[in-house]
């Protein structure tokens, strides 16, 4: 799975906001161009960005394997036409190029994921979106990261509990709805306990924000983001 890993790369030293800007610039230009030459240029840029975060290419492809299947199917769907000649190679190739640029955007986003700890993302949200909404969004994102593994374990436990008393003998629909109700019930249960803990720790509207520093490296990063975004109009 793709997650943050501590390291000393250039990407790790950047402010999360400049990294997000680069991501958006890259996506904008990738979605604007599908000519083979543009794709070549985009591939080069993507390779540089991946290197800047030392992203392991193979593991990343494995992590995105489901998305890759979808991207691989798309050209086939596009090539098939209703009526003669049934297969339109031109459509298929156009779609294949479209899929390829999507793959590049996905890979580049792995650079953000690998180089950015949750607390930086949270800080970026809280410093970008003003006031209470930004505050709640920031803490909320941290909580989603925190409880994702907890709720996964809950869902497994529910399945085990049903299996131990032979719930496996019931219909799929019945099983699914039981898992749904129980999963939701447990999640809300945990939420209610969490809300007490948050209050006990003085959960406030105006906390000290997690530290972020906009350093020397960030200026060139922002410049790259702007150039990428502008190249969308070429």
């Amino acid at each position: 799975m793709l997650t943050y890993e501590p390291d000393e790369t250039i990407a790790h030293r950047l402010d999360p906001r400049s990294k997000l800007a680069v991501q958006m610039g890259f996506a904008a230009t990738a979605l604007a161009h599908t000519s083979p030459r543009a794709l070549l240029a985009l591939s080069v840029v993507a390779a540089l960005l991946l290197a800047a975060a030392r992203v392991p290419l193979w593991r990343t492809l494995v992590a995105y394997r489901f998305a890759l299947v979808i991207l691989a199917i798309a050209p086939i769907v596009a090539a098939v036409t209703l009526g003669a000649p049934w297969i339109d190679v031109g459509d298929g190739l156009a779609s294949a190029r479209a899929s390829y640029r999507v793959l590049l955007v996905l890979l580049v986003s792995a650079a953000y994921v690998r180089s950015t700890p949750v607390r930086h993302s949270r800080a970026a949200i809280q410093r970008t979106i003003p006031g209470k909404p930004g505050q709640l969004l920031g803490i909320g994102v941290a909580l989603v990261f925190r409880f994702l593994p907890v709720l996964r374990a809950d869902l497994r436990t529910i399945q085990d509990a049903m299996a131990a008393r032979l719930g496996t003998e019931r219909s799929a629909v019945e099983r699914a709805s039981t898992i749904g109700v129980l999963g939701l019930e447990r999640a809300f249960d945990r939420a209610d306990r969490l809300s007490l803990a948050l209050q006990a720790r003085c959960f406030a509207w105006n906390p000290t924000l997690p530290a972020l520093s906009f350093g020397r490296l960030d200026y060139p990063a922002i410049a790259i983001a702007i150039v990428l975004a502008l190249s969308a109009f070429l």
Partner: protein
Amino acid sequence: METEQSDVDLVGGETVRAVARAALLAALMGAAAIVTIPYPLSPAPVTLQVLVVFLAGLYLGPLWGTFSIGLYLAAGAMGAPVFSGATGGPGVLLSEPTAGFLWAFPIGALVIGLLVHREVSPRDPADVPVPLVVGSLLAGLLVIYAGGVGWFAWIASTSLPEAAAAVAVPFVPADLLKLAAALAIVRSGRLDPV
């Protein structure tokens, strides 16, 4: 110390509870993303995301339901592996062929919340007439399809009907089942709204 601390502006108890529930529902949506069934009729997979969007609108209401699904997207964008097939990262929202569904999810929750509750603080959906619940969920589903189809048509450069045939129509039966499941959960009366 005293003077420093007296400036602290505590978040009210009701809000804390709503935020906690919104975050946990978003995490549940992410945990359910493990269930991703590739679907031969479509480039999009069958997932439980729509069911959780239904529940967000029904149990958290228009404000916190939308916020909850928004949290889901934000956490996914920041790299939590919460999207279909356990993927995450900003690129998914920016480019994936199915990202239109993702962007439409919070709007779907908003529509459902507004239609069912008519105000910010949700009432118990078990007390809402069943036809209204069903109608609201269908409206939410349409919004989600609209987003998904529109985006797919743009990104895969197909016509809207082609896009609908590819990523919406094949899911109608499965999504109606999820609607029935949401209804069953509401009727079970086992959950309190925020």
